[in-house]
């Protein structure tokens, strides 16, 4: 889902940067207010954690592999605003230092993965797990559903961005200037692979990590409440 440079036109890049600037500002203000001084390195370590999660190749039936984004997991562990910063930092470093995702598309990538996926995943998880104890199996189900749905919502957002390009940027002769596929094709292509493959990867990993932490170290699942306190 990392959009490279050249796929999106200036209008989409500009709008997504314009949307993300206030989000980053609000996130940094909220995190600065709620995060205790002692927890500042936690944010950097969480960003590194989020970065590394995207590097894990997870086996998928059929012999191939896929990778999780880990944005929902970060939101469950850190809360949505801190997760928004952590995932954004991971995406910016990936774009600047490793060429994974474009520099002009940083706004779009952060909008999809650090904003849409993080907040959608967090609130779906909260809605399903509301009122349950920290070790309740409902939390595992909530993490699974949140991981699956949030990644697909983010994929839908990315596909809408792709699909808008031929509408927004075309020469007089009908030649596409950026991503050449229309909305219908882009949505079908992106959603089919995410609904069938990557959504499950994100769901399984999010749920399994929550399950493992419930058993081994449930305090870590309460950490985002601790950050707020």
């Amino acid at each position, binding site marked *: 889902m990392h959009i490279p440079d050249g796929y999106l036109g*200036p209008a989409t890049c500009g709008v997504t940067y314009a949307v993300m600037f206030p989000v980053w500002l609000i996130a*940094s203000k909220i995190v600065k207010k709620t995060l205790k001084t002692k927890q500042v390195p936690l944010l950097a370590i969480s960003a590194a954690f989020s970065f590394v999660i995207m590097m*894990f190749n997870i086996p998928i039936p059929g012999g191939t592999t896929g990778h999780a984004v880990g944005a929902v997991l970060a939101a469950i562990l850190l809360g949505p605003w801190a997760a928004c910063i952590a995932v954004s930092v991971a995406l910016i470093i990936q774009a600047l230092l490793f060429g994974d995702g474009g520099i002009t598309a940083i706004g779009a990538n952060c909008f999809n993965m650090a904003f849409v996926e993080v907040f959608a995943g967090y609130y779906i998880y909260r809605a399903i797990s509301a009122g349950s104890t920290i070790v309740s199996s409902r939390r595992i189900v909530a993490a699974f559903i949140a991981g699956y749905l949030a990644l697909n919502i983010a994929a839908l957002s990315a596909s809408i961005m792709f699909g808008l390009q031929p509408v927004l940027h075309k020469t007089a002769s009908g030649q596409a200037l950026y991503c050449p596929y229309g909305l219908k094709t882009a949505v079908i292509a992106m959603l089919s692979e995410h609904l069938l493959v990557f959504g499950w990867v994100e769901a399984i990993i999010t749920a399994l990590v929550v399950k493992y932490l419930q058993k081994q170290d449930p305090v870590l699942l309460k950490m985002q409440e601790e950050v707020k306190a």
Partner: protein
Amino acid sequence: MSALSFLKDSVFSDEYAGCRGFLQARDTRFKVAIIFLLLLAVLFSKNIYFLILLYMLCLFLAMFSKISLGFFLKRTWIFIPLFSFFIALPALLDIFSPGRPVLSFNLAGITLRITQQGIAGAVFFFVRVLTSVSLAALLVLTTRHYALLKALRIFRVPQIFVMTMGMCYRYVYLFIEIIENTYLAIKSRVGFVHSVKKGQMIVAVNIAGLWQRSYILHDRVYSAMLSRGYCGEPKAIDEFNSDFKDWISLTAAILLFSAGLLWQSCCLS
């Protein structure tokens, strides 16, 4: 694990950033601004010749920066541009790009036509992606990573982001080592894992284990920060030095960007 090895190779390859080439000699703040301007020129360009010109400039910059051309081409053509090439292939057909047909053929009883608009669109898309990737690669290859993150301050990126990025970058190294060691330990104990379910479980346990270690680590890092005098606000040492060559390079980039916009408006009118 292949993704991890690739990441490790890219993280530890600081070879070209230490050379005495044209881009390496530029002040990092100016270099970021120059590359960003050129990326914007690529983004706004609606002229294939201007894009080719910018791509040629990338190759010249790579040569003057003492980057082996073979290495540069390998680094910039594989992965994203090649992937984009395959993505662009169906766009040659009239199903996606209606227009004047230049070639038609039958596939499983269906007549498909390659159109002029399809070819032009696919070539444009591919050259744009290739030039963008080449510019980004020039920046990454010729700059020490910590200097690149520090230079972000000129774009008024909030301090919490810059500090988090700098620290995050350092912990990525550590986490890669931890994961590699964990995988090696698993491999030496259980060998190759055939079951998909077991494989997924191992990855999940690894991620959860990494999070546990991260949480323990942040306490120690905080103690280390306190012992170095951290009192809530990060302080950074600026080591940037600019000279007239940096200003000339930046002016050239601004002129090129403006020329691109002008060329475009001339072509449109």
